[in-house]
Structures are given as C-alpha cells and as structure tokens.
C-alpha cells in the first residue's frame, strides 16, 4: 500500500495582510503571494523509497506537508492508493523537520503514541522497548525530551514513527542534527527497514549523497517556484558506493550540476 500520484500540484502562499486577487483569472497569482510549487507531476510506486532534493526554501517541506495532508494545495490533487487525499491519518506518519516530540511526555510515552490502540498491553510494552532499542535509547525511556541531546531527540522521533508501522513514512530531513556516525547508522537503519518492510518512504533531504545512496528514485526540484527537474529510478545494487559504481558517481556529478554546484572543483 502506498501508491502515490501527484497531479498538476500547485501551491501559493498569499500574504493575508494585503490580499488581492484578480477576479477574471482566479488562478493567476498577483500582488503579494509567493508561488512555491508550480505544476508538480510525480508518481511513486508502492514500496518505493523516494528521495527529494532541492535548494533551501524551494518548497520541499511544503510538498511533503501537502502529500501528508497537513496542508491544502492551491490547485491539483494527490491520490494515494486510488483515493484522493483528504487529511492526515496514521497510515502516513510524518517525521517533522523541527522537533515534534511532545515535550510533556517521556521517550516511552512518545513512542507509545502510535500504539495506543493495542489491546495487549504486554505486547505493546515489548514493541515500545524494541523500537527504543532500535534507535539505541535504552536507559532513556523515562527521560523527557529536554533531557536529551538534539540527535537523541531525532532518534526518539524516528522510533515513534517506526513503531506505528505505517503504510507510508514521510521524513523531512530526518538526519539533521545527528553527528556523522549517527547519521550513517540511522541511514543504514532506514534503508534496512525499507528493504525489510517494503514501505513507501518519502525522504526530503539536502544531502545529495544521502539521496543517491538511499533512494529507489530520486527527485530533484528546482529553486522556487519548484518544478520537477529530474525524477529518475535508481537501479543500482545495494550496498551502494560511489567509488565502486562509476555510473552512480557520474549521476552524482550531474545532480550537483543541476543544483548549481560544479562538483569537480
């Protein structure tokens, strides 16, 4: 489950302080509005891990928020498994770019959020523990978020998302704030989990290496207003390495160029 089709998606933010809109052309953006997403068409297959790249402020978070149902598009539609999206649900869990652990709950209580419905309390406890161990937070079950470091908070949030076992997982820059090793580890963990559970995962990132190593498909957005510059299937065997796989490393150079960086300085 998790086949996603995005059709003619458009999003503009209107400055509500001076709202002006032409009567004749309601779709035309005039005056004080920011066009963020401009006619996005994408299709993601079931079980695909898609990495979304783009310059800062181009609208990656906005796109992800719309797909997850937190934000309404100005025009266009998102169809998930044949149904037009109406709002958020626990079938699609979102890992937010900025810390979204509930600060008044301990790590354990946060991870338990997605398991509230479980009948068997013993099993629930076990699952909570399992996911806390997965992100190596044993011993911190009863700590509050303010007692954790930034990286630990990210990991706790990942555990909370994974514990739900959702159809689709949306991650907005999930590795920011992690140190290099934790970054590598979490990346590996997400890839492993994806291989194992075959969920549809959308990962927004600004890290080109992450995007190429993790994704089954890579999507590159242009600067604002964002349109799709590249949407390509990555058919490289795992584990991937830029050194061993020259084609992958060639693609990396292309992506760098696409984002305006001459990689081979």
């Amino acid at each position, binding site marked *: 489950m998790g086949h996603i089709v995005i059709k003619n998606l458009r999003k503009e933010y209107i400055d509500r302080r001076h709202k002006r809109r032409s009567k004749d052309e309601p779709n035309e953006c005039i005056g004080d509005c920011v066009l963020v997403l401009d006619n996005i068409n994408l299709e993601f297959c079931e079980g695909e891990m898609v990495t979304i790249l783009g310059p800062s402020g181009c609208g990656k978070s906005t796109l992800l928020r719309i797909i997850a149902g937190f934000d309404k598009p100005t025009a266009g539609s998102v169809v998930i498994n044949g149904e037009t999206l109406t709002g*958020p649900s626990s079938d*699609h869990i979102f890992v*937010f770019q900025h810390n*979204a652990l*509930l600060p008044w*709950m301990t790590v354990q209580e946060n991870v338990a959020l997605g398991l*509230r419905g479980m009948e068997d309390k013993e099993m629930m406890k076990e699952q909570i523990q399992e996911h806390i161990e997965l992100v190596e937070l044993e011993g911190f079950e009863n700590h509050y978020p*303010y007692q954790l470091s930034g990286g630990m908070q990210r990991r706790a949030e990942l555990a909370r998302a994974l514990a*739900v076992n959702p159809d689709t997982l949306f991650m907005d820059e999930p590795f920011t704030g992690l140190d290099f090793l934790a970054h590598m580890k979490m990346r590996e963990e997400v890839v492993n989990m994806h291989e194992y559970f075959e969920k549809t995962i959308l990962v927004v990132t600004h890290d080109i290496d992450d995007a190429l190593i993790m994704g089954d498909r890579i999507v590159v957005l242009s600067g604002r207003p964002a349109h799709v510059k590249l949407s390509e299937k990555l058919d490289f065997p795992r584990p991937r390495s830029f050194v061993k796989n020259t084609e992958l490393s060639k693609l990396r150079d292309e992506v760098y160029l696409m984002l305006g960086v001459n990689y081979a300085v």
Partner: protein
Amino acid sequence: MMNIINRPFFLPFIAFSLILAVWEILARYSGWSIHVFPGPMQVFISLWELIANGTLLRHTVASLFRVTVGFYLAILLGIPLGILLGRLKLVRVFLNPVIQFLRPISPLAWIPLSMLWFGIGDKPAVFLIFLASFFPLVVSTTVAVQSINPVYFHVAANFNFTRYEVVTKIVIPGMLPSVITALRITITIAWLVVVAAEMIAVKSGLGYLILDSRNALTMDYVMDGMIVIGVIGLLLDHAMMRLSRIESVFWGTRSR
C-alpha cells in the same frame, strides 16, 4: 562567608531584620503616639494575644474559605472557557469582545451590585473573588492554548487523536506551564480582593479584623492583620509555585 550567604534563607532574613530595625527606630523617634504607630514589640505581643484567644484563626479561616471557594469556581469555569476560546475561532469571535469589555472593570466596582444581589455574608465576597480571578484566568488560558506549537496538533492529527485526546494529551499539558504562572498571579489578586471585600460586605475575615480594629483605634491589631495577610500571601504564592515543579510540567520552564 560565601557559604552563609548562599543559604536560601540568609539574605531574606537580613532583609526582614532590617525592616524590623527601621520600624523600631521610627516607632521610637517619630514622635507619634504609641496608639498611632506601635513598635514591633507591641505588635508581636498583641499578635500573640490574638492567636491565643482564637480570634486570628477564626478570621483567617473565614478569609481563606472565601478565597478558596471563589478561586475554585473561577478555575472550574474560567479554564474550560479559556480552552474553548483558544481552540474554537467561532467562540472566540463571539465572546472575546464581551470578555475584554468586562475585564477592565475592577472587582471593587462590583461591590455595590454584589451586596444588593447577595446581601451580607460570604456570598458577595465569594462573588467578588470569583470575578477578580475569573477574567485573568480566562484570558491567560486562551493565550496559553493559542501559543501551543502547531506542530503538536499536526502530530495529534497524524496519530489519529480523538477530540478528547487532543484536549487531554496536547491542550492541557501544553498550556499548563503558562496557566500555572497565571494561577500564581491570580491567587495574589484574589487575596488582595478578599481583604477589600471583607471591609464592606461581611462581619468576619482579616479585612473585617483590620477595619474593626481601626474603628476601635487599636492600631496594633491593624498591623497584626496586615502581617498575617502578608504571610499567607507568601504561602499561597509558594504553594502555586510548587505546582510548576511537577515533572510533566517542568518542561515548560526548560525548553522555552
């Protein structure tokens, strides 16, 4: 030396001693008669008298009773109303102007009406305390609810929270740190108002003790009343402050 200064009660103790000293000097050398400006010794002796014959306890209990009832009523009605105002735009648009209109009217301005409506006794005093605490609590709860980080409501929607869960797991814990601060400020206001109310509407309580003693020209009793009011105010504030140390509320003092 630093050790003594760092003891929690050392510096406040010095401050209070200084006040006592100044008081003593003023009482002795100001030239006022002892009936107009009694010194600390005399006041403490009369305080002991009032404690011994039970008068003080009776009046203190009467005042505390009124504050408790009025304050609890205000909490019971004000906080839920504040949550509604904070969460539902329609309710806010409907009620907020009325609340903002009533809020600046001092509770003391209600004294004539409350005496007319409720007569003499506990009721008008409780009503005044209710008014004095209700509006600040409504307004600060509304603000507290509105300033909860919207991401937490996204999380709630994401994890399929019911409306009830949104209130118990997001709204209440999220607003609690600010609401406890508001409770601290409000109980102080309520305590200020009870004394004023008791000077007019009732025949007991610390406010009445002060007024009655003034009429009897026993200024040492007036000062006794003032001292007890101060001490109890301090204790009330302290009790409210302890609420913010509850572990699941403590985040508010740390992460913001």
